[in-house]
């Protein structure tokens, strides 16, 4: 299971949905695997605004990654024409964009190329464990949690 997917998962127990403790789920005994995934800037730009950054930092930290920037990269173009300012300014292509590219590549590696193959995810609210086997997480609940 990819780290990006983890950022979109919470406890399946209904009573946990309202608790901030149920997200993100916490890893135990996680075995990681790296794979090559084709880099796609359009997808990253589309998806980053939807990533919960604080949760990503917690997940990355639990899995031993320390490269996540403190702040989510600002993807709004530095200078483009807007309704209020119809004059199109030249787009700045110097230093800051080059850094963006490196940041984006690093995020791609973490979010899409890093997978949890085996392990458990635990809800911080109810303590229920969700097992991950061969990269597939099982979120089916026993009847006493339904």
């Amino acid at each position, binding site marked *: 299971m990819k780290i990006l997917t983890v950022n979109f998962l919470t406890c399946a127990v209904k009573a946990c949905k309202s608790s901030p403790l149920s997200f993100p789920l916490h890893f135990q005994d996680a075995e990681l695997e790296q794979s090559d995934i084709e880099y796609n800037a359009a997808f990253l730009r589309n998806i980053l605004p939807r990533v919960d950054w604080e949760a990503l930092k917690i997940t990355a930290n639990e899995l031993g990654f320390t490269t996540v920037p403190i702040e989510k990269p600002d993807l709004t173009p530095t200078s483009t024409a807007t309704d209020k300012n119809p004059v199109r300014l030249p787009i700045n292509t110097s230093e800051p964009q080059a850094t963006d590219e490196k940041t984006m590549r690093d995020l791609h590696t973490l979010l899409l190329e890093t997978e949890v193959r085996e392990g458990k995810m635990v809800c911080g609210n109810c303590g229920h464990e969700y097992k991950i086997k061969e990269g*597939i997480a099982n979120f*089916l609940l026993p*009847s006493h949690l339904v």
Partner: protein
Amino acid sequence: MDYLIRFVQIRETFRRPEIEALALLANVNIDFLSYTENSPYSVVRLKDDVAAKMLIDRSISSKGIYELWGEGTTYDELHANVRHRSFSQWTLYQSCSFRFEFDTFSGSRTLAEQRSIIESFKYLGFNGPIKMKNSEQTFTIFEEYEYGNPNGPLRIFLGRFVGGSQRHVLNEYTLKKREYINTTSMDSELALLTANLSLAGEGKLFYDPFVGTGSFPIACSHFGARTLGSDIDGRMVRGRDGKDIKTNFRQYGLLSRYLDGLISDLTHSPLRKGRWLDGIIGDPPYGVREGLKVLGTKDGSRKEAVYIDGEAAHLQDKYIPPKKAYSFEAMLDDLLEFAAEMLVDGGRLSLWMPTANDEDVELGIPAHPCLELISVCVQTFNKWSRRLLTYRRVADSQVEDDLPVRQKMEMKGSTANDLNSFRKRYFEGFKTPLAGVSIEKPATGES
């Protein structure tokens, strides 16, 4: 400019919604000047060739698009119209290589007839070489006959080929050649059509809550979307005999676009609430081949965790969570509610559902105040039919509060047949009217 779209004459109700969806995706303005369900030819107005190419490139319901050079009900009318409509274009194609083709619908022409008709266009003044393969330009004469009446065509068009559709991939994606399938895998052509209707595309994130063997995610990823799937049946997601959904993605060179498969139940979804999905596609189990099940027990029992020898049963590797039968209508309502919570503004939900069509007793089309119904496409089988419903998530500011939310049906009974009128009727061969719908009894039958 006017263009002629050459549709395929099958699954007619999918065609116009597909083209409209593709126009939205390509950001192209389109006006339908003529369109009917019983003709494969439709005349549309578009800005230029670039727009026409972009529009048709992803299409599954059409074969191609042509610049319209003329139309008529007789060849005299056609020639007059060609002279009037396209005269200024003729010189542009005077010296390039070219060929003429025939496309007859519900009729036929002998080669000798075809040749003499093609000769009648001599006045166009094309002097370039005629090449039957790889010509720079292709001109097509379209003849549409009345069904069963071969005495001359009803309508004739002349078109210059501008762009081909996506139908060339159908052979590649056919289930016959797919490595991992099961009895409920969606036909690849319908899956690709569904992906178009739901606006799957580059950079987007799509989710299928009834993923099965991955038919819809594959179709969405073919068009560039990144996809996520889940299924309550873990065997589907895990695969068998060393083959799984990933095997299929690998087969098509799309593995980078498949994010993950999860084992989960839509009524207890682990997906974080929020508007982060660009599209949702689902073919919920109707309860015929695959019984419709959700987590829980029939009688609501087993509310305490079970311990065997001091160890929690539900933490054992072999543990199988109990499941109960569920009503199809309730599942549809859950799916719409889920889509309203999860889709971005303008994001689409495409869902398949059956329609018992032999007695005009229909399952109602589910509604939600946040979801605007965009299209209803129908696939007809011998004794029943199913529909593809496509909805658009409207912005919260545009939600009309006075739209009634369909009340969740009170669930009666607990067997699969009690809960699923469609399943019952399927096994009865659609002989009896739907339970609860009294179309034969007089209204005052009982006092």
